[in-house]
């Protein structure tokens, strides 16, 4: 307990930064749930592919040795590529793993099984180092980039950590600020898009009443695609921020992040964009506080115990459903 008090601000702020990443991933779960009432379990891999996109882009740009403002420029490019890669994976998933099922009127359970299958397939495909590289006969050329996909891939370039200002006794770094502010900015943009734009209104219409939405002229296939696209973009941003903070990834890095982000989405109220934000921050901070009190190895126990507790008292999550049935 004393450790928590001594490091209160450090734990809280790094919890917020972690929570910001959870929240960005959570948006993908919550939006797809809002529109299709099903959990896209493969969304974790949409995130994981984004983290690898960051690694590859920085390698291919020849990032090592870069200094000064150019570091930020390269990360900005990595961000755009990660968004594009994650969005493409998300769209591919929708096209291959879900749309054919939905079109045939398959029950949600079938789509869920398809999602779990797609998740393993994507993760293992990323982890298939020797076989894949050997198969295409590019051992030498590709080895530096993909051969160690099963191991942790570290970044060739890191944003140098600089202390900016002090809260309590904690020196807030540029990394903390970048992660928290970019996540907030992305979320505000998404929230405004869904609330104000015509397409955003189409998303809400399908979430609230799919038949009425069709009668208004909303093409639900396009809306579903758009939802996957937006979720993928957010996951790509999350992947970049994750790499900025953690600096390494693995083919199975999506799993735990995905489960945590899903937890954040449920905690905040699945289907609710602002709920995902709140859920992410609450989860990130609670995890840090909890591990300070009872030990780091209990981090995940704390996170999931908190989920169970919140759902016992508020079954619809902290903010309730919103994109769907309840009020906006």
């Amino acid at each position: 307990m004393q450790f928590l008090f001594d490091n209160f601000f450090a734990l809280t702020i790094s919890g917020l930064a972690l929570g910001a990443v959870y929240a960005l991933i959570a948006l993908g779960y919550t939006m797809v749930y809002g529109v299709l009432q099903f959990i896209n379990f493969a969304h974790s891999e949409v995130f994981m592919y984004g983290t690898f996109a960051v690694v590859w882009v920085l390698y291919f740009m020849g990032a090592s040795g870069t200094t000064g403002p150019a570091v930020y420029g390269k990360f900005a490019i990595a961000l755009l590529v990660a968004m594009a890669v994650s969005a493409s994976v998300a769209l591919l998933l929708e096209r291959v793993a879900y749309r054919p099922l939905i079109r045939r009127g398959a029950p949600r359970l079938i789509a869920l099984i398809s999602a779990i299958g797609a998740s393993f397939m994507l993760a293992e495909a990323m982890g298939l180092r020797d076989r894949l590289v050997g198969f295409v006969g590019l051992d030498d050329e590709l080895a530096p980039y993909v051969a160690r996909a099963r191991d942790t891939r570290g970044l060739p370039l890191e944003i140098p950590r600089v202390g900016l200002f002090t809260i309590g006794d904690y020196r807030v770094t540029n990394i903390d600020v970048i992660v928290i502010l970019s996540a907030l900015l992305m979320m505000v943009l998404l929230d405004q898009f869904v609330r104000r734009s015509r397409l955003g209104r189409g998303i809400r219409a399908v979430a609230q009443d799919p038949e009425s939405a069709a009668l208004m002229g909303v093409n639900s296939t396009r809306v579903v695609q758009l939802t996957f696209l937006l979720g993928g973009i957010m996951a790509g941003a999350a992947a970049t921020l994750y790499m900025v903070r953690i600096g390494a990834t693995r083919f199975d890095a999506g799993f735990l992040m995905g489960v945590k982000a899903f937890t954040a989405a449920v905690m905040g109220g699945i289907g609710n964009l602002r709920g995902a934000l709140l859920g992410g921050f609450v989860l990130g901070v609670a995890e840090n506080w909890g591990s300070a009190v009872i030990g780091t190895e209990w981090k995940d126990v704390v996170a999931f115990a908190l989920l169970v507790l919140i759902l016992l008292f508020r079954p619809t999550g902290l903010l309730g459903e919103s994109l769907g049935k309840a009020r906006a």
Partner: protein
Amino acid sequence: MLLEVEDLSVNYGHIEAIRGLTFGVEEGSIATLIGANGAGKSTTLKTISGLRKIRTGRVLFDGKDIAKVPAHERVQLGISQSPEGRGVFPGMTVRENLDMGAYARKDRSSAALKPDFDRVLELFPRLSERINQVAGTMSGGEQQMLAMGRALMARPRLVLLDEPSMGLAPKLIQQIFEIIKEINAQGTTVLLVEQNAAQALRLADTAHLLETGEIVRSGTGHELATDSSVREAYLGG
């Protein structure tokens, strides 16, 4: 004929919901389908708007077969529906719901929508009082008005009204039927589905009585209203 339904059959799962339906709706008229619950009235409307698949038969709008046109493209052809059980977007405000009505229109600038907003709010003054209220918190009658107003925002040539009087107080029912008359007088063709046969027949130019998925009587509204078997079964003698 603006709308022609020819020998239409539709299944609902394995059950035949309607069978061999043939009727037409003249441009500028009010037509009504009456009948008991489960007679297939709503299914007919949903098939015209594309929410249900045709098993056999044809639906012609303005002379063109629209069987292959998906539901979300039919509103652009000029068919707009106020769905059964109102189907407003519960989490959107009245204004947003009305905006949704114009979702598929090519001219969506607020200047282009202004006359339609004004028209709808004039027909339903209640809605202008509640313009920023979230639809899910409104009374059944208000939601009904909103669903009808929303259907008009598309500037349809044909508006399909599914049970607009369902669950409303008698005074409000009277008002809703007055408004339907007014909508028609302003130039929109109306196809009305109603369990409230007395009111619907008073309004309708042509009427069809459905029983278990088939048309058993057709005629003018007046003819059906004075038909002894219709009177007995649907108008309380």
